[in-house]
């Protein structure tokens, strides 16, 4: 049996993160959630995860700073795929995030939770082809 993929959801809005958590669990993922940037960073460093969904506006540490920390790190998180959870009007932040090394972004308001899962699945499917 193939080992479950582990996803880390760093998002301060509990309703949003729990919505994604439920669906990813149904798809067979192991789901870890973090409610702010600091907690997210420490969980990313202490557990091996396959992908990170990262909100931008969060207390304690914002998404961009988390991303910088993840990427600057010489540890295992350096190559962990990161998808930003974004809102419209954050185009400049998205650009910056791509420069720092994000793999993609998911516009929360435009995507139903099922579509978020599909996009993550599509990403893994594409990676498997490479």
């Amino acid at each position, binding site marked *: 049996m193939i080992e479950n993929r582990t996803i880390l959801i760093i998002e301060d*809005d509990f*309703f*949003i993160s729990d*919505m994604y958590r*439920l*669906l990813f669990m149904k798809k067979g993922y192991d789901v870890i959630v973090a409610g702010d940037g600091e907690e997210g960073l420490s969980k990313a460093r202490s557990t091996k995860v396959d992908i990170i969904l990262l909100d931008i506006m969060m207390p304690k540490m914002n998404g961009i700073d988390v991303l910088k920390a993840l990427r600057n790190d010489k540890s295992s998180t350096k190559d962990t795929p990161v998808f930003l959870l974004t*809102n*419209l*009007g954050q185009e400049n932040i998205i650009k910056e995030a791509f420069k720092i090394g994000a793999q993609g972004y998911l516009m*929360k*308001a435009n995507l*139903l*939770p*099922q579509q978020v899962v599909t996009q993550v699945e599509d990403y893994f499917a594409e990676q498997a082809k490479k």
Partner: protein
Amino acid sequence: MPKTSNVSIASLPLDVIFNSSGYAICAVDSKGRIIYINKSFQNAVKRENLIGQDFDSIFSFEEKDKILKIGDICKSSGTFEREETSFLFDDQRIPMRFSATRSDNGEIKYFIILINLISLKQKESLKLDFVSIVAHELRAYLTSIRGYLSLLREEADKNAFPEQAKTFLERASTSTDSLQTLVENLLTISVFERGSIQLKTQFIEWPSFVEKVADEFAIRAEEKNLKLIFNQPKEKIPKVVVDPFRITEVLSNLLTNAIDFTKPGGGVEVNIKTGNDGVITEVKDTGIGIPGEAIPNLFTRYFKVGSRLAEGSKGTGLGLHISKTIVEMHGGKIWVDSEVDKGSTFSFSLPISKK
């Protein structure tokens, strides 16, 4: 001159009129000496004993790099107006609109009217901030509402919810989607009005582009038992230069309206042709039509045709205002021909690319 009761406005003391105008007003005589200031002027400059002083020695106006002297303006005839100048006073530079009107009534040579542009702009900016903040907040909650509704709909299908419960869910979802559209429109407008939008244009094969958008709406039309047809143009349509994302908003708006305002059994047609104004795209419906008196205001912000049309209709009327803004940004025009109970045809033009 409109009058109220039998009292002519001319019989009111000028001071009352000036003080209630909200403008800073000052009058100078033929030698450029201040002979009158109203309350707003006094409040704006906060200086005592202005009457009798030489205007130019206290204040100056700057137009680009030129200093305007009231003495010089007094020599010109008629009305002197500038949309944007600066008012220099006590080392402050205040952008403002400036207008001086000649009066040959005795010693008074000019009225000088100042409007502080900064405060107008600040007010507008605060309003836009407010709209934008509220819309962003609303959207955060909407994301969660829409998400959970879609999860609940999945559950409803899997677990055979009672039919009535499913209907309730569908209605809640439809309203939520409408609310989402409204919030998106508010955000679009706040961005447009800040003037911070730049089109990302590219050459587009227009008919196939429009056909693709129309196809997406054909399903929605079918659900309402409407026929939506895209007619292949009979002539060759030149390429146009558009921002695909923005122009899709225009097409979507027009198609949504056409579907919303047409009763089941009716039809919507999309046509493309060339005309004097360039490439013209038409969205024609057999809907309820728009009364003639409503048409001039149709494209203004927040306008919605009255109760007659409002029955069974949705939206805030922001969509057409946004469409007009986008079409005009592309150098085109938008217009409507409509007859009540017969239908409406919304058309917009796009200039033909010279390349």
